[in-house]
């Protein structure tokens, strides 16, 4: 496999609705930003781009099949080859890795990964219906298909198993909304307290409105390049290297998840988990194997010490806590206490609470899905772009302020997750200069 670099990225501001543009132009905004950031003219870009990956989740939202080809022609990239990637909530992360594969294999030297979703085209509850169609439509959807309900059942089991509390979950919401306060790309920028989360409307017990990400319209673009292209075109002196990719998958029906032994990371021992049945519905086995594979490839043996930050798929506050554990930042069962100790908060930001270990490893410094929004096909690529800027040290340039820049960030992880932990992918990005 050849080394692969990310050389630029762009994100449209995620908002509840973008009626002023169609999806093609929304992608173009992110694409133009990415080109401009490396001083690449669109005409020149056409000459050097070998192919693209289109990332979008639901044909129901667009009511347009083959939307990817319409983006491609709008960007002026015909007749370059392209393909569409879809994998529920993990669509963006899967597409990013698909771009990596295209370059790592030597097929493309420069690959544009673009993603979008236009969720505002139906009302919120119809949108939830579309999303719930990503559950077994014979056995699960007709019972009351609702993703917030599914995740609520998963965290109820986590609470029962490990004594995780709703206040611990609320802290994730406090952190991510407060981080997003400094991120101009985010949809929901607000400083809130634990009580605000608990007092907001109940959606699926025990998850409230502020435990759950919102639907958005948005687009994001990542440009990947080979070493050869890096040297030949000299587009950036701040490339970021993709040093690890991993993926996993679990049974679509939560009911089908096994109850066995924990799949261990290198720093864990079987004795840590005596009597724990795994993954059940309290943990995401696919997230564990995705992390394990990505860590092995990147040479990470102690994720808490070896990573400077993580952008992970916090569609729910509960799933962020569950993901700390899958990614080995703490042991299974300790996710609630991990956030309570302040470990995933940013250092140096005042959240209105005192934490004994604030800033150990910032998780979702951007504000994550909960605050940035979750235009599905764009989300995983948005994470890549924010991680890319962190590693370049250019958050100040792109956000207009430096609050969220992690000092001297050298290595970060991005984590993209679909339907109750079915598709999960993890990619490791490192400063390449």
């Amino acid at each position, binding site marked *: 496999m050849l080394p692969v670099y990310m050389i630029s990225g762009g994100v449209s501001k995620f908002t509840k609705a973008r*009626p002023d543009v169609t999806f093609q132009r929304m992608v173009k905004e992110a694409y133009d930003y990415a080109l401009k950031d490396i001083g690449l003219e669109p005409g020149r870009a056409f000459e050097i781009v070998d192919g693209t990956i289109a990332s979008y989740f639901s044909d129901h939202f667009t009511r347009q099949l083959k939307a990817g080809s319409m983006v491609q022609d709008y960007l002026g990239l015909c007749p370059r080859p392209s393909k569409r990637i879809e994998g529920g909530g993990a669509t963006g992360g899967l597409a990013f890795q698909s771009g990596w594969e295209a370059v790592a294999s030597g097929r493309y030297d420069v690959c544009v990964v673009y993603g979008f979703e236009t969720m505002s085209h139906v009302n919120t509850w119809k949108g939830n219906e579309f999303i719930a169609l990503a559950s077994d439509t*014979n056995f*699960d959807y007709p*019972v*009351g298909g609702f993703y917030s309900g599914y995740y*609520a059942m998963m965290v109820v089991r986590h609470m029962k198993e490990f004594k995780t509390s709703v206040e611990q979950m609320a802290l994730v919401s406090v952190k991510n909304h407060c981080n997003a306060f400094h991120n101009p790309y985010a949809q929901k920028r607000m400083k*809130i*307290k634990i009580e605000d989360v608990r007092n907001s409307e109940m959606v*699926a017990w025990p998850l409230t409105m502020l435990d759950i990400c919102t639907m958005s319209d948005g687009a994001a673009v990542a440009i990947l390049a080979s070493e050869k292209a890096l040297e030949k075109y000299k587009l950036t002196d701040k490339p970021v290297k993709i040093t690890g990719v991993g993926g996993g998958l679990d049974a679509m029906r939560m*009911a089908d998840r096994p109850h066995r032994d924990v799949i261990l990371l290198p720093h864990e021992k079987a004795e840590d988990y005596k009597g724990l049945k795994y993954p059940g519905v309290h943990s995401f086995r696919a997230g564990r194997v995705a992390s394990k594979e990505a860590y092995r490839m990147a040479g990470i043996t102690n994720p808490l010490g070896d990573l400077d930050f993580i952008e992970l798929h916090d569609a729910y506050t509960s799933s962020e806590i569950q993901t700390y554990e899958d990614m080995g930042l703490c042991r299974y069962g300790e996710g609630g206490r991990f956030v309570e100790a302040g470990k995933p908060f940013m250092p140096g930001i005042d959240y209105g609470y005192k934490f004994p270990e604030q800033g150990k490893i910032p998780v979702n410094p951007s504000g994550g899905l909960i605050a940035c929004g979750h235009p599905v096909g764009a989300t995983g690529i948005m994470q890549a772009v924010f991680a890319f800027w962190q590693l370049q040290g250019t958050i100040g340039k792109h956000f207009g302020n430096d609050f969220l820049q992690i000092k001297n960030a050298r290595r970060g992880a991005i984590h993209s997750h679909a339907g109750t932990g079915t598709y999960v992918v993890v990619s490791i990005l490192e400063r390449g200069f």
Partner: protein
Amino acid sequence: MAEKKIKLPETEEGAVIFNVPFPEDLSQLKKMAPIIIKHHYEIDYIHSYGQDSPFFAGLANGKLLGTKCSKCGYTYGTPRLDCMECGGECDWIELPKEGYIHTFTICYYGSEEFLKETPFILILVEWPGVDTLFLSRLVGVDPKEASLDWVGMKVRAQFKRLSKFKPTDVYFVPAGKKNK
């Protein structure tokens, strides 16, 4: 934060219009507000339950069916005809009427199709000796009394008399209470 916005609900009915104002000067067009139209979409599928069909026939006849692998013995609380453990073919079995709540939630919102049924309770049912779970509805408890103590509650399957051939033809009630 926390304070609720006072506003009228947004609804999707509206006027039918056949024209809009148009500027003389075409350079003004880029400043024009977007035209947003309502587009109706409706479809009937001819959906086959395929190899899962006996499950629905079972519900219509008051039986909750799972499957058991003929090769490795893995037992499915939600049926599948081919074993995901060993690839062997499974046989149909009848599951016990009584099981236990593995986990649950109360949906105060839902997908549009189920919004009118809120609040409703979803549970995953477990049975001793059955390797996988089953998603269903729980009725007969007060949503306001939700607590983690519900996990482990003994529940009993009840069936709709007029079958809809949906997985909701079966639902669960607390097994402790008398249900007439």
